[in-house]
């Protein structure tokens, strides 16, 4: 199996006034292609910080983080942007769709920044929406869609650049149980097709649907269960 993510002794500190708060205290983590991992921890455990570092939205204070073999350190924002574009597909708890854009326009957004031409962009986005089961809703605005449908649009958007990792932060947190499990089914399906998924959650039941669970507590990975 190909190793796509490797974290060695990752620390993350924040300066809070005079005090330094250490949020991550020596994280070691390896992820291989095709895995479906749940990072499980209570709030304040450091799991969001870990997600930000995995997603290249933030950089570690010390330690080594390799993503697809490339070292992620304190790089220019522009370089981090390019890495994110290629490697990471984000899925957020509250979807973050642009409310004034149709579903297909929302899915096209990453392609706009990647410089794909208009016609191809539309085709790819429509195709991706079909894949998540929304081929009849491509011209709907977010407010015309249910929560589950909105999250599917967000998943389609995350997939559109064919990223190395799908990074989901409490993807069912804003959904009822039924639509939540439909979204989880979609994740299972995408994982079976070979997509690597990292899901951040505090919900143990949700975490159990992943192939592998990483427990995080107080800035440390305390246990790995399969």
């Amino acid at each position, binding site marked *: 199996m190909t190793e796509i993510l490797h974290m060695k002794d990752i620390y993350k500190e924040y300066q809070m006034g005079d005090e330094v708060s250490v949020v991550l205290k020596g994280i070691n983590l390896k992820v291989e292609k095709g895995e479906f991992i749940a990072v499980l921890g209570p709030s304040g455990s450091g799991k969001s910080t870990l997600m*930000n570092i995995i997603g290249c939205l933030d950089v570690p204070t010390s330690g080594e983080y390799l993503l697809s073999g490339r070292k992620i350190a304190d790089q220019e924002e522009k370089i981090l942007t390019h890495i994110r574009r290629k490697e990471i597909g984000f899925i957020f708890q509250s979807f973050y769709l642009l409310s004034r854009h149709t579903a297909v326009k929302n899915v096209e957004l990453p392609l706009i920044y990647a410089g794909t031409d208009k016609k191809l962009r539309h085709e790819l986005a429509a195709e991706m929406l079909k894949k998540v089961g929304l081929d009849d809703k491509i011209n709907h605005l977010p407010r015309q869609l249910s929560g589950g449908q909105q999250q599917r649009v967000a998943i389609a958007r995350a997939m559109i650049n064919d990223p190395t990792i799908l990074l989901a932060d409490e993807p069912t947190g804003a959904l009822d149980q039924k639509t939540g499990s439909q979204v989880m089914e979609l994740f299972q399906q995408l994982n079976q097709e070979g997509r690597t998924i990292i899901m951040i959650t505090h919900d143990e039941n949700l975490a159990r649907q992943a192939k592998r669970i990483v427990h995080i507590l107080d800035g440390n990975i305390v246990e790995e269960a399969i």
Partner: protein
Amino acid sequence: MLKENLIMAWDNIKNSKMRSFLTSLGIVIGVSAVIALITIVQSATGEMMSQFESMGTNKISVSASGNVLKSGLTSTDLDNLSKIDNVSGVAPSVSLTGSAGKQGVLLDEVSIMGKNEKYFEVDNTEITQGRKLTAADMDGHTYTCVIDQDIQAGMFPNENPIRQTIKINGQGYEIAGVRDTESSSDVMAGFNASSTADGTVIIPYRNALALSGGSTYSSVDIYIADISLSEQTQANVEAVLDAAFNYKDNSYRIMDMSSIVETMNSMSTMLTALLAGIASIALVVGGIGIMNMMLVSVTERTKEIGLRKALGAEPLQIQALFIIEALTLSLIGGIIGIFLGLGISVITTALIGSTFAISWMAIAIGTGFSVAVGLIFGWTPAKKASNLKPIDALRTD
């Protein structure tokens, strides 16, 4: 990418119509004020200028009051003046008031002007009947005249005056032509004609000099062939005049129309700049309005900015999005302001009775200002947006 940004900016403007309208209003007021003031000032002064220019920028008017030794310019002096390089002709002018009469009619308050053929050559007052006076009339023994329509109306209401004889101060003159009263382009002639109730008659200059009882000319127009050399020519004219009056000071004055026009020009430019400067204060206020709205917009859309960045938008692309939005707002305001300003100018120039002249400079300034305002006042908010860290932006509630 530019097109995408334009579409996105337009979407945002459209979605907050009221706010965008109020924000642009500042620019509309600023640009229309600048345009209206510049256009009105230029229309008004432009008309004044063309009046002055029609008096002739190609001539130097000499008013020779003389001194104790010599009362004015002699015929020899006129010959000397006409021999100067680049002088195309010299037109002396003698004016007095007298009477004109014929059998049964006497006009006793007539303006009598003595002119030469050069005057008729450059003067563009319409000759309605007959002919102008020519060099052949100027020998001093030929008694021909050109009357104006006032005299024609006074003396020959129902008959053809050409070749008729009238008595001017007792001397018989044959009428060679009739000219229009109204459109006199010579400001002095216009003056005299309107100050005398009965009209104006023009006779050969030598005859008029004899009639006035004098021997020298006090008023002479010198015409210049090539205006670009007028400074040199004027210096030569002054040299000849200095010699004519034996270098006595204050014997003559020179009135040069082109220098008057120049002075007026620079005054009007100053006035325009001053008014435009005052009006552009409104533009600055409008710019602050745009900046305010953009800052609010950045704060409101922090999450959107964070999301766009997470999805791969570079800082520069975020900056472009907001600058284009600010530019679009200010340009829309600018375009509306240009039309509004031109509208105000059309109405105002009509009210003050001058001709409306579209000023491309005003339009260029209006457009340039609104673009500059958009750029300057959009820059800071856009920079602020582009500097947001995506995690901080996504985290805000």
